[in-house]
């Protein structure tokens, strides 16, 4: 089971810009490497990260093999209302991980 780490401030003022850091464990195999016997290692990467804030998409990233192993992505959003931020990573070989974080806006 891939594990994901999300850093979202638990509480924020209304209208404040909050920084979100995400990290997920994944090899991000490029598909360009070969084994010592010369056989190509098939590509296995995370293709996409989508962040929704109470159901509305606020950020989307499309990733390619040039992203390092264990993709670390930092972005920001405006704290508009209390609720949940949901993060979904999808990728090759049916990879899909969803995790959420709660935020209290006052």
């Amino acid at each position, binding site marked *: 089971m891939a594990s994901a780490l999300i850093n979202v401030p638990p509480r924020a003022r209304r209208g404040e810009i909050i920084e979100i850091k995400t990290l997920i464990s994944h090899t991000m195999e490029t598909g360009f490497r070969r084994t010592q016997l010369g056989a190509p290692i098939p590509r296995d990467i995370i293709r996409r990260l989508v962040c929704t804030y109470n159901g509305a998409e606020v950020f989307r990233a499309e990733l390619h093999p040039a992203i390092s192993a264990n993709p670390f992505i*930092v972005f920001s959003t405006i704290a508009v209302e209390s609720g949940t931020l949901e993060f979904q990573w999808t990728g090759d070989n049916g990879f899909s991980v969803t995790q959420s974080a709660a935020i209290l806006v006052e």
Partner: protein
Amino acid sequence: MQRRASRREFLRAAGGVAAGLGLGSLVAVRPARATPAEMEDAIRKVVGSATINPGRVTLDLPPLIENGNAVPLTVAVTSPMTGADHVRAIHVFTQKNPQPNVASFHLGPRAGRARVATRVRLADSQTVVAICELSDGSFWSTSADIVVTLAACLEDGI
């Protein structure tokens, strides 16, 4: 009586066939690294025929990195990020990786601030290009040069 092919004729014919095969495989083999022209093609695929203006984007990349497997990269765009004037997307490309695309980030007015950071792999010392797309449809770009001591993608697999 049927005339048999002389040794000379046979060799000439065989040579022709071999040359043909050689040429065929030359065309089929893809270069292991993208070229600046391929990066240009990849950029055109995203941008279309729009002109790309220099400026507005800051690409923060260390000038020298030891390990190309994890290079910290930050892209920021000067933009008010309002509903009428915001950054729609940020794209990152490289010149000499096996594939020119690195990542595309889609933002909107709800991002508040047009700034994204990640870690990338770089196969060689090269130029990295960041392009942003604004809500009015214009494109802005910047580039940064980086020296990579230990390239990514070269180590043996399992």
